[in-house]
């Protein structure tokens, strides 16, 4: 994606200013930005680097190390499907296939209509009741094809 990234620069500056005094401020700053903007815009990197007295490469290195941080805006909703062992034992690989068909995109991608980003996750801590998914911050357990369809439909209709 090469489109112009527009984000609230003042808000990002505010987050950095508010958290830079924390011990080990980097992750709290990145979390703050991602919560606010939905991802870490490339233009935020030099801002963070300047305030924390680090090189841009160091900041970028941290962002790219962690799976949770995104460098591109996600779709309107983020669907995470657990693909770890306990969910595998309860059929999550089939669900992973169904999710790709239903959303029309592969893992780590966003659907063409910009509605959904599909991501794998390795354990949501609900391992007795898989397969489990998280949509935005909502957890759903024992998710089969029908339930997935209903949940996705509800999100589509809500928008």
């Amino acid at each position, binding site marked *: 994606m090469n489109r112009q990234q527009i984000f609230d620069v003042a808000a990002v500056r505010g987050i950095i200013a508010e958290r830079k005094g924390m*011990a*080990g*401020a*980097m*992750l*709290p700053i*990145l*979390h703050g930005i991602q919560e606010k903007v939905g991802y870490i815009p490339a233009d935020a990197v030099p801002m963070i680097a300047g305030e*924390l007295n680090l090189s841009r490469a160091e900041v970028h*290195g*941290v962002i790219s*190390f*962690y*799976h*949770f*941080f995104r460098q591109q805006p996600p779709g309107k909703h983020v669907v995470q499907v657990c693909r*770890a*062992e*306990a*969910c*595998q*034992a*309860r059929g999550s690989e089939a669900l992973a296939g169904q999710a790709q068909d239903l959303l029309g995109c592969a893992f780590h991608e966003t659907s063409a209509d910009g509605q959904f980003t599909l991501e794998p*996750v*390795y*354990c*949501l*801590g*609900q*391992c*007795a*009741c*898989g397969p*489990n998914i*998280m949509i935005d*911050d909502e*957890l*759903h*357990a*024992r998710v089969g094809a029908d339930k997935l369809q209903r949940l996705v439909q509800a999100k589509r209709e809500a928008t």
Partner: protein
Amino acid sequence: MSRDAITVYVPRDSTALALGADHVAAAIAAEAGRRGLKVDIVRNGSRGMFWLEPLVEVGTPVGRIGYGPVDAGDVPALFDAGLLGGGDHPLRQGEVDALPYLKNQERLTFARVGITDPLSLEDYLAHEGYAGLTRALAMEPEAIVQTVLDSGLRGRGGAAFPTGIKWKTVAGARAAQKYVVCNADEGDSGTFSDRMVMEDDPFMLIEGMTIAGIAVGATHGYIYVRSEYPHAIATLDEAIAIARRRGYLGDDIQGSGKRFHLEVRKGAGAYICGEETAMLESLEGKRGVVRAKPPLPALEGLFGKPTVINNLISLASVPIILARGAEFYKNYGVGRSAGTLPFQLAGNIKRGGLVEKAFGLTLRELLEDFGGGSESGRPIRAVQMGGPLGAYMPQQQFDTPLDYEAFAAIGAMIGHGGLVVFDDTVDMARQARYAMEFCAVESCGKCTPCRIGSTRGVEVIDKLIANQDRPQQVHLLRSLCDTMVNGSLCAMGGMTPFPVLSALNHFPEDFGTPNEKAA
């Protein structure tokens, strides 16, 4: 709270929420309103019987009566059946404390979990909460450390290192600042006991960390929680604010003049940050790359200062040890595996959930007596114990007693106490491939055997599956695993061979090599 209101409990644990508990609570409130009945809805934690969640409990003169699993749509019929008086209904489970799954446990650390409102400090205090801290505040720090040492408590995060020895090292270090770090990264599939403590009894963790701080002379603590646990983070944040307001955290804990501050830090989706030194790097704001040891974190840990870094369950076990004494705790368990462990039954199992028992029972007892066999009804074929780095165990090993040494002797691991059950439809070659792939994705990249070896491992297993030169590939895979075991800096690369080789050794037919004998 009016005296004639009946108390109804609807869990707020995230598994219950994922199964619709909020809708059930709302439906109960609405239905009671419609009928002009007074209910007092308490959002308790989960009892850990997840096949019954959402488990609704009603307080009656003969104890708490449970109904589950309840769907919001069941609520009118439950009221018709006399829910508030403990009336009969197909979902009625009877008195919850008397259910065999619970009654046959030895809940020390999880004694309050599922019973109390996690964010009610009154509830906590009424159920032995802060009894441990009260005792600790009356002791010399050395005596606290000695109590933990005498209890036989070993780290519950995997390596099973004695907690008291770790604390003693930090207590003996001289520094202007020391830290306590709680490892709440819980990245292992099949584990959820840390999550349950954070969501269902957070004051217990706060109390345990406060005691640790006083014992070693640390005034600041961090709880590193994985980003996959938003509910746990929110509950902890609230509980910390309450504890601070009520003088259980801060500059003068309960008028003792002792100081302890606590902060939650959110991880960012990297499995390796569960490794203690990678966690310290992450807390310092860097990439989660493993540090070489020495220096030990106990001497040079967070920001270069002496640091206690313990698994969440290790820290959460401390309050009861202080409250009831080292002997009390040590009297549970076998040999050098003292106390209890919250085992977590996950995967393809009928009654998945949390079972806290003293060490020494067998895997089969957990799988059959508690778990009730597989959920699919098919034979259980393999169990992965101790997370993604743990071995796959076949039927023949299910009678192994749960004891750190007995497991180590067969090349398996108790680890965090999580077990993941697979029925006979599992393809063990695919599970072995997954283990290598997981290592390739999650490796911190510092050492070659792990970083490159895991990628090569995936390729070799692919060739095995595709039946290209099988004997040659098996030979290659074994030698690759050997290099990873011997050449890796941490257990990520060093233990990934455990699931891989155990799958190959115990289930050779899935690799198309039935004649290959276990090495």
